[in-house]
């Protein structure tokens, strides 16, 4: 019989306000095997833990139950506490009487009764716990960074600087990401390319960094410390080693009508192309969908003009399989589609553009050479309207419920830059709220208003209507003056909501990393573990985790790198001892369990088995504990009950069921 101690936490008033803690203690003390029961205001505090430790020592407890917050919060804390007091950490069970009880119920009697039942279930379970010993697994000292934008580049650089090899996988032909598309950055107004390009070069030149561009992650297997990733390198049709980056092929390519993704399709590009001048690697790719050679078999001009003989039409996709200890997701964002926002006439007028499109228009390397002009007729606008929160903070389900965070600042930036360069252009900004928390951010916004005379109107725009003369009638409201506003504008710029890159969802599935309802990757803890995914070994960098600007992205990228370095610095990891095992007396050797094991952790052996004195060779399932992650799929597939899971055994779960239904 176990000697069980029960410790009931008040969590200040978080638990004690709705659960009569003393009654829980009393009820628990009456349960079989319970030799010690007590309460304490904060069980997780040092004093609370000391109390547990001394009870373990003084009363020779063989198992403990802590009635407190979620085991996801403090199970590890109490396990460590038990271990320090000489009790096996797996002899600890948590009854979640906060998240699953005191916080959801109002009635004290009801909540107290439920807390008692939850405590009983945990006591019933701990009776069947057995001491478990964690195993160890190796760490592959290499990291994978998925996404080659500023987040991915910064994370990779920091990891590489610490001395660990890193691979960057980028789906586009060049690294650089969204930041490469930006013209200037707030609040300093320095040129985006000027600060990004050196980082790109540094990453490309770093001896610890390998870059796979035009590549995608195809498959991920394994677990923390030992992931195996298949990377699909799309056929570039250009030999990376031979190409000198002279650009002649792009100049001569006769297929020039492909919408240029880098310029947000505001211009066109050739079929063989590098997305932008500073591309890294400076090796073009052939877009096979638009290449005349691939479409008709005729052409081959690029091959003729390439002095280096780098063009190779026969290249095919290549799958590279690599091992990694850690994986960083830095897949970034895109702007949302505007097809559900017909009122802004985005599809009807070329002069209604998104902010990211404006970045390209303002950029010297963009489709207009950096001249502010209307895309419809090339004329300079005189009257510009910016509309904030297009699809952000949207409650009607057409857009996103969250704030995209960067729009207030970049709109102030755009407005300021335009007023600076073209003082006779009138700029009006419609906003819901101006949100400018951040170092030098509010000062920046105030400069736009006070120094540059940008006209900010608090209110929403109901409609943008193209007029016969090609101008745009913007009808909105001014909430402060309480009146309708109508502006005839030459250009309208929409601060379009951002959303995670569409690749994030598929990737999250492959990584078994969780994702929220907006497709942002979920953190292990929103406050305390913001750069880690709940899936061990998977880390989050940049906007894939949530909207953020460049300085935030870079700091998060660094934090993420620090976590990765911390992992890679370990020689071995402690594995979860809650793994499956098969009872050789019960195992039929039928192979059903191996069919459902996602980790290939089950194999079969012919073994001599002594079944109550009868010896014989049997086919027995054997679980590799280093590979088993403890999901339990095998345990249910096994008809004979031979397969069981440590820590969540059949009998433990049944004991909980019985306690709850009692």
């Amino acid at each position, binding site marked *: 019989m176990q000697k069980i101690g029960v410790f009931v936490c008040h969590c200040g008033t978080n638990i004690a306000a709705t659960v009569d803690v003393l009654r829980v203690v009393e009820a628990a003390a009456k349960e079989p095997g319970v030799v010690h029961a007590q309460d304490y205001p904060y069980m997780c505090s040092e004093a609370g833990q000391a109390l547990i430790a001394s009870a373990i020592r003084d009363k020779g407890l063989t198992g403990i139950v802590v009635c407190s917050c979620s085991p996801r919060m403090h199970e590890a804390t109490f396990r460590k506490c038990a271990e320090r007091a000489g009790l096996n950490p797996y002899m600890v069970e948590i009854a979640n009487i906060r998240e699953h009880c005191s916080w959801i119920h109002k009635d004290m009697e009801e909540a107290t009764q439920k807390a008692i039942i939850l405590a009983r279930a945990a006591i019933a379970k701990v009776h069947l716990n057995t001491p478990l010993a964690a195993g160890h697994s190796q760490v592959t000292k290499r990291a994978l960074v998925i996404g080659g934008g500023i987040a991915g580049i910064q994370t990779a650089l920091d990891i590489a600087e610490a001395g660990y090899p890193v691979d960057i996988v980028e789906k586009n032909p060049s690294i650089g990401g969204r930041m490469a598309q930006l013209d200037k950055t707030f609040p300093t107004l320095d040129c985006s390319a000027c600060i990004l390009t050196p980082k790109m070069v540094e990453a490309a030149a770093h001896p610890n960094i390998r870059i796979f561009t035009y590549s995608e992650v195809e498959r991920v297997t394994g677990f923390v410390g030992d992931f195996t990733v298949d990377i699909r390198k799309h056929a570039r049709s250009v030999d990376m080693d031979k190409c000198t980056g002279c650009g002649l092929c792009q100049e001569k390519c006769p297929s020039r009508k492909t919408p240029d993704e880098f310029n947000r399709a505001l211009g066109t590009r050739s079929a063989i192309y590098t997305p932008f001048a500073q591309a890294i690697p400076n090796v073009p790719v052939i877009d096979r969908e638009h290449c005349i050679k691939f479409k008709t078999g005729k052409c081959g001009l690029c091959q003729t003009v390439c002095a280096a003989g780098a063009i190779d039409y026969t290249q095919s996709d290549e799958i590279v399989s690599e091992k990694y200890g850690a994986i960083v997701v830095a897949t970034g964002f895109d702007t949302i589609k505007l097809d559900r926002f017909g009122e802004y006439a985005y599809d009807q007028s070329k002069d209604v553009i998104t902010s990211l499109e404006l970045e390209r228009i303002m950029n010297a390397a963009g489709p207009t050479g950096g001249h502010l002009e209307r895309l419809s007729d090339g004329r300079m606008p005189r009257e510009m309207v910016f509309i904030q929160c297009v699809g952000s903070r949207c409650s009607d389900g057409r857009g996103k419920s969250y704030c995209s965070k960067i729009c207030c600042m970049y709109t102030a930036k755009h407005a300021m830059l335009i007023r600076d360069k073209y003082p006779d252009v009138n700029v009006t900004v419609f906003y819901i709220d101006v949100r400018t928390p951040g170092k030098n951010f509010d000062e920046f916004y105030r400069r736009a208003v006070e120094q540059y005379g940008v006209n900010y109107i608090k209110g929403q725009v109901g409609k943008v209507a193209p007029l016969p003369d090609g101008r745009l009638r913007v009808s909105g409201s001014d909430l402060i003056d309480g009146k309708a506003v109508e502006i005839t504008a030459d250009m309208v710029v929409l601060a379009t909501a951002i959303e995670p890159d569409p690749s994030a969802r598929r990737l999250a599935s492959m990584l078994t990393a969780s994702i929220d309802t907006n497709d942002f990757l979920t953190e292990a803890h929103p406050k305390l573990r913001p750069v880690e995914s709940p899936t061990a070994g998977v880390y989050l960098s940049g906007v894939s985790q949530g909207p953020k600007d460049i300085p935030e992205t870079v700091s998060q990228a660094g934090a993420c790198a620090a976590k990765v370095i911390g992992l890679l610095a370990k020689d071995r990891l402690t594995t979860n001892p809650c793994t499956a095992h098969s009872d050789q007396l019960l195992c039929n050797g039928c192979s059903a369990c191996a069919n459902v094991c*996602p980790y290939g952790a089950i194999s079969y052996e012919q073994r001599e088995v002594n079944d109550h004195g009868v010896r014989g060779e049997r086919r027995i399932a054997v679980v590799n504990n280093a590979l088993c992650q403890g999901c339990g*799929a095998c345990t249910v597939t096994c008809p004979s009950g031979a397969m069981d899971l440590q820590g969540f055994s059949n009998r433990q779960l049944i004991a909980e069921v019985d306690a709850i239904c009692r």
Partner: protein
Amino acid sequence: MSIDDRDFRPVIAAFCCNWCSYAGADLAGSSRMKYPAEVKIIRVPCSCRVNPMFILRTFEKGADGVILCGCHPGDCHYSTGNYYTRRRMASLISLMEFVGLERGRVRVEWVSAAEGAKFAETMNEFVEHIRALGKNTRLEDLRCKN
């Protein structure tokens, strides 16, 4: 409705996978969302850990409803666990209805770690449904009754 019916407090067990649904329940709690105290949660590593034996056992011991919550298909922490759950439970639920258990006493729901509100809503709805069904009399162990 008799007095007994009004006072009927069903016994409900909710098996929740550690990675999504249990975390979803935690979120419901930390967001102070309300759902009935009849729901008692049993933590399992993955929905695929839930053996039909457990579900029957729960009824045997007097439960009136059992709900199994896991990660959304495609989002399983163990990649594929809930795909097996989905198949097993589709068959089990159908079989239990076939032998005459009332519709909806056993239910499967996918609740992610971010869906605290969905967790609370699901539980409210489930408890309401079980209350409407009344006491489980078709699958019970009479020895548990006094």
